[in-house]
């Protein structure tokens, strides 16, 4: 018996603006949930003239014209559990995810211990099921201990449920190890995800190399540290014929390299994260450690290049890059502070900024956080279709609010968007047909 029994009655969600990037649907209509699955969806479904007529015996939920979209699929999230539960537990992570409309997330392997062993992968899946919020999946480490020396047991980890392989926060620095990881993974048709940063060039750096770092007296991480690694790995992917994905791409140069590789037909994909299209190095201000991210916030030219790459499809997906870090490691002088920011609850509103700024159409923006990452991770998610799990989010694209880190559900409060005025918010989130989140003002 499942932990959370599904509603005994079918439920009809009517009067919703249905948004399904996978099928291109954008219309007023209804959705019928039976058990844990979507039973029917369609324009004007249950509509009878000016009224909505739901099937006999079904419960009716009037969505009042709110957007109903597939639950977000977040392909880059770090859990503090196991190992650093004071930063984030799978419980707080699950609650933060559904508060942001995220119904599936993929955990990075950089836990303690590292996910390079089947038991850790299984522990996370089991704990996440018990929490019963967002569905949690895992990456396996590409190398043992994510140390970049010996290959991890990718085949066995894949059998235990790992969706793809990466050393997560660490780049696989050694070219020979990376080549072997790509070659080995390709024999199982597994995806390798790289944090592209040449470590020797980035060593000791605290923020993007440039005028601001110089003014603040901080050592810089040059944009070339990313591009050099991207160019190298494209060569290695070409040598091995492997599927390679670059995480959180942040510079104009590396995007240009990826665009060229895609044009040549290589199996290269990439994602970016909201800070890289919504913030710049100027947001470091006077040593704001919440803006100390990896890769670092870049220049305005780089930010524009990221937006352009989101428009032209060079960037395949957007992930939150949720890295919880507590005060202990953030409230320090900038060079000592940890890298990383939380992002689950700002993923939707910051992505919607692209729509409000008329840079992307609504369905194109949503595709980046639903169907596209689901496809990359080969997950049955991110889509509204009969027979699919009933994972969806109701959101108000116009609702204006101000990000207040203290009010977010994550255990750590290190949001680079703290204080930002945003527009668009998840109102209710459903996983397998169950309501797992309702925004406070809507509970009344």
């Amino acid at each position, binding site marked *: 018996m499942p932990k959370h029994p599904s509603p005994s009655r079918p439920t009809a969600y009517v009067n919703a603006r249905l948004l399904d990037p996978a099928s291109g649907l954008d219309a007023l209509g209804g959705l019928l949930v039976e058990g844990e699955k979507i039973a029917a969806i369609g324009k004007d479904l249950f509509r009878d003239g000016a009224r909505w007529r739901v099937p006999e015996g079904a419960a009716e939920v009037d969505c009042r014209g709110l957007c109903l979209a597939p639950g977000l699929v977040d392909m880059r999230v770090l859990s503090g559990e196991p190992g650093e539960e004071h930063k984030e537990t799978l419980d707080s992570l699950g609650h933060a995810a559904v508060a942001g409309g995220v119904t599936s997330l993929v955990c990075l392997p950089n836990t303690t211990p590292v996910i390079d062993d089947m038991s850790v992968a299984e522990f996370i899946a089991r704990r996440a099921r018990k929490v019963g919020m967002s569905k949690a999946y895992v990456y396996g480490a590409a190398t043992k201990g994510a140390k970049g020396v010996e290959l991890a047991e990718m085949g066995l980890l894949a059998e235990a449920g790992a969706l793809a392989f990466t050393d997560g926060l660490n780049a696989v620095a050694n070219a020979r190890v990376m080549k072997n990881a790509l070659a080995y993974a390709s024999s199982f048709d597994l995806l390798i995800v790289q944090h592209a940063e040449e470590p020797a060039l980035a060593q000791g750096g605290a923020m993007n190399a*440039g005028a601001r*770092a*110089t*003014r603040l007296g*901080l050592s810089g991480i040059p944009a070339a540290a990313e591009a050099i690694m991207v160019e190298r790995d494209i060569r290695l992917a070409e040598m091995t014929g492997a599927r390679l994905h670059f995480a959180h791409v942040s510079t104009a140069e590396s995007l240009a390299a990826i665009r060229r590789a895609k044009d040549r037909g290589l199996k290269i994909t990439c994602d970016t994260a909201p800070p890289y299209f919504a913030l710049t190095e100027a947001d470091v201000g006077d*040593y704001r450690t919440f803006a100390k991210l990896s890769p670092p916030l870049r220049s305005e030219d780089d930010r524009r290049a990221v937006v352009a790459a989101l428009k032209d499809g060079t960037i395949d997906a957007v992930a939150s890059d949720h890295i919880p870090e507590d005060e*202990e490691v953030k409230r*320090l*002088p900038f060079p000592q502070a940890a890298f990383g920011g939380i992002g689950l609850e700002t993923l939707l509103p910051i992505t919607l900024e692209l729509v409000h700024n008329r840079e992307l159409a609504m369905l194109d923006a949503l595709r980046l956080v639903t169907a596209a990452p689901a496809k990359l991770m080969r997950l049955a998610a991110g889509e509204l279709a009969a027979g699919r799990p009933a994972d969806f989010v109701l959101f108000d694209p116009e609702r204006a609010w101000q990000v207040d880190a203290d009010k977010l559900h994550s255990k750590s409060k290190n949001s680079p968007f703290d204080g930002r005025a945003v527009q668009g918010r998840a109102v209710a989130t459903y996983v397998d047909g169950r309501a797992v989140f309702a925004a406070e003002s809507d509970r009344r």
Partner: protein
Amino acid sequence: MPPAPFEGFAHRHLLGIEGLTASEIAVLLDRSESYVELNRGAAKKQATLDGRTIVNLFFESSTRTRTSFELAGKRLGADIINMSVSTSAIKKGETLIDTAMTLNAMHPDVLVLRHPDSGAARLLSDKVNCAVVNAGDGSHEHPTQALLDALTIRRRKGKLEGLRVAICGDISHSRVARSNIHLLTTMGASVRLIAPRTLVPSRVETLGAEVFHDMARGLEGCDIVMMLRLQTERMQSALFPSLREYFRFYGLDYDKLAAAKPDALIMHPGPMNRGVEIDSLVADDFGRSVIREQVEMGVAVRMAVLEILTANLARTAQKNL
């Protein structure tokens, strides 16, 4: 009875030169000037800061700067506590804020902070009730050094405006360079930076200085030649091949100095590596080297800074009543 507040310099802390206006800098320099004579006289002590407590909080060893602040505070009648924190302790992370909170509970009036990380003084200033003086934070700023340099120059040249100043050496890691660039450009001087490319930070020209990699060209027509200390420990990271080679191309000797104006002043924040960034003969050329005078001006500048910030603190406190 608190001293009268200083109109013209309203800041609570001195965290850096960046952001100060020319008139605010002038207020600090003018006040410093008045202490030069006091320090040269026999009776050096005043009661201006009687009853005040100043804490020198040094996370990096620096005998000169610490002594200079200590002397400045004592000459104004303040009580001074010196605290040195070893660098191994700060690696544990929380020491700066923890130490600051502990000290804050003892109600000092001024905290003088030296710290190896850029931004540390600003972080501290958010957490304490007293005034904070940045005595050097990482590679960011060292405002009292720039002020004492400016005072030295102004007394010798009668002005700062219109002068051409060369700053030579490890610009990348130098807080002295950054503070001096801000101060000198704000006061209307032009600044040239001279160093090999490996010691020049990215886009430094945006700070308003011109960059040269050739000493002779860079020094051409300069009124002031300011040498920076070369941190020999940075040899490890392959920023230049050898000390011998460095001295050959970037060390100040009479040959290279010939490109500057004949009456150009030679400055150095100390301590000097003789034969590395500066030739001993040049360093000891009493006609042109003002290195010892810089040390003297340091005490006067720090007296002025302590006095002004304490006065402003009294004013803030009165406002809060």
